[in-house]
């Protein structure tokens, strides 16, 4: 077998035009590696690093992208100071934290439960898996749109379902119009849409656990409850943590679904940080201010994600 490969390699080497071969032969492995990586690095620098550095620079100015003729002043840390002392920004951070916490908590719980059920191998489990993952295949704009109809107090199915269960009048509560219910309304929709994603990751984790471990536990007369806590949960934990990381990053920058559902309202109770940032950057055109805002959000996500990844690695190493 080795001979066959060597012969094929020789043939390929002989087929290479002499000039190219000479040139490549003159390069070290390291140089060739750089040659392959260079386009990616260049693209990364152009698309990610340069805009990041540019944003940081703008964050210290009063630049407004819609006022190209206006003089740009260096304002030092003023933008950062204004953001960190702005009560409205903190309210939008609170709304983001509420959304993040509850969506992740619910999605992990329900996603894991669904994965566990699907993993029990029953007739039609593949069909059920397909049905369950359907919501995450839809566009957020479509989901947002049809949930606004479902939440409509006069004709919405959601209100009628709640009314049927509780006996309340369907028009007596407004999921998207009430200050207390709207933050929960967006949590429900995101959970409905993205729980299948968590379920799929958990299912991969559950199916990766060798059957022999459970057999050994049964021989040791471990109860199903003990098997669950000492085998299933620890072995699925890295997968769960990965799901939490993905959903956390995604939901920290949640925009489309919530804009479609509430537009940030009523008032500003569902105005998440990304919606607030978009308004500052592309509606009010306070480019310098919104650059500082973006830098603060970036540092927050990056910092939290780094800590989390370290924790994830520790769990995996156990």
């Amino acid at each position, binding site marked *: 077998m080795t001979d066959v490969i060597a012969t094929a390699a020789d043939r390929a080497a002989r087929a290479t035009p002499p000039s190219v071969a000479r040139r490549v032969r003159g390069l070290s492995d390291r140089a060739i590696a750089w040659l392959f990586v260079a386009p990616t690095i260049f693209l990364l620098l152009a698309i990610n690093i340069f805009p990041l550095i540019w944003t940081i620079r703008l964050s210290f100015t009063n630049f407004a992208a*819609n*006022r190209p*003729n206006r003089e740009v002043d260096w304002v030092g840390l003023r933008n950062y100071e204004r953001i960190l002392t702005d009560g409205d920004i903190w309210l939008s951070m609170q709304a983001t934290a509420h959304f993040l916490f509850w969506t992740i908590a619910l999605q992990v719980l329900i996603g894991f439960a669904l994965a566990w059920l699907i993993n029990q191998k029953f007739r039609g489990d593949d069909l059920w898996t397909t049905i369950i993952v359907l919501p995450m295949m839809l566009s957020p704009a479509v989901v947002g749109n049809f949930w606004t109809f479902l939440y409509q107090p006069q004709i919405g199915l959601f209100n009628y379902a709640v009314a049927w269960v509780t006996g309340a009048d369907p028009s007596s509560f407004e999921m998207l119009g009430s200050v207390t219910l709207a933050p929960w309304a967006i949590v429900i929709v995101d959970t409905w849409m993205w729980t299948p994603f968590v379920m799929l990751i958990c299912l991969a984790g559950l199916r990766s656990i060798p059957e022999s471990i459970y057999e050994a536990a049964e021989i040791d007369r471990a109860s199903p409850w003990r098997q669950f806590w000492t085998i299933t949960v620890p072995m699925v934990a890295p997968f769960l943590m990965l799901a939490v990381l993905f959903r956390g990053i995604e939901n920290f920058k949640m925009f489309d679904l919530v804009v479609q559902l509430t537009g940030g309202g*009523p008032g500003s109770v569902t105005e998440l940080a990304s919606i607030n940032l978009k308004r500052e950057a592309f509606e009010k055109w*306070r480019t310098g201010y919104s650059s500082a805002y973006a830098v603060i959000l970036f540092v927050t996500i990056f910092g939290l994600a780094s800590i989390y990844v370290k924790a994830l690695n520790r769990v995996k190493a156990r």
Partner: protein
Amino acid sequence: MTTRRLMSSAAVAALTLSAAGAAQAENLTLCWAAWDPANALVELSKEFEAQSGHSMSFEFVPWPNFADRMLNELNSGGQLCDLLIGDSQWIGGGAENGHYVKLNDFFDREGISMDDFAPATVYAYSTWPKGAPNYYALPAMGDANGWFYRKDWFARPEIREAFKAEHGRELAEPTSQRELMEIARFFQGREIDGQTRYGVSIFTERGSEGITMGATGALYAWGFKYENTPGSYDMAGAVNSPEAVEALEFYKELYQCCTPPGYTNAYMEQSLDAFKSGQVAMAMNWFAFFPGLYADPDTGGEHIDFFVNPPQNVPASTLGGQGISVVAYSEKQDAALEYIKWFAQPEVQAKWWALGGYSAHNSVLNDPGFPDSQPFAADFLKAMENVQDFWQEPAYASLLLAMQKRLHDYVVADQGTAQEALDMLIEDWTEVFEDEGKL
């Protein structure tokens, strides 16, 4: 028509065509919002295409995205639009940032006089700085926020009797904001033809400009002013005056007492839907929609009538409408100016009104037959006499979004008091004007 007239018309047409043939035929793109009058403009522009040899394309953007889309286009120096019918509030930014072509020389050269257009529309749609004779647009579409109601319900004897028994007066078009609320309360939750009906649909939208445009209908009627002295940016005592506080409290009460359930984020489209589906007795919306409403087979015609925004302390209406500008980044400015020249002609303006557009030309508005030409024409004239507009500053978007937030927080989300909302609005606006270097 006499033979001589026919011959001279033919000669003019031939001259126009030969001139058009000599000039390069262009494809002009006109950008505007996607709504009923835009369709009328497409129809009207066919005449321009036939006369000039140029062809017209149209880029119509739905209202909720119109400002975002078009301002991005202008700010990026885009060449999508050769002509733009932009909102009145954009005129400051359009002029100061060099997005719009200044039209003074063109008007002088072509003999187009701004005296031929209604003064309120010239002031609001064309001039920057406000009131100065620097023109950046030709008034294209006069508009104001008005009201319409179910005339057939108002005429029913049993409803009239019930109203008279409750209020001791005849049920009729409201003559004040307070009367409007009284009528709205009367209809709220009332069973008519076996269905539950509601009082009014008003603007409560959060994302773009909705709640500001709706609430200013009440604020202006109470005598709201943006500044104590025009041009001074001296807002304390004007923006948060006792009258302004009372007006804002009124708007919130109207929202709470008399709108259909779930009416928390409603603008033009939702208002039209609420009325056309028979949910509400009265609704606010822009006059631009009134021809379409009147033509509606179910709720138009004999079922509908219109009234101007009722006064409280003063007669006042919120200004809508737009001017038509030539985009400075267009490479077809000559052809675009040709369009404006054509559009400014009195006979074209008359046709514009006949097709459903709102001409601001005096020859149309001062025509003795105008008030009776449509059931809403007299109200339109009345509204345009007392229109008031939002800030038209280059930083208008920041000013508008601040007001959207404060009003929605107070009216819909029920947070704080009207006084607090207006006080905070002054703080927001002060910050914007400080950033602008105007304070």
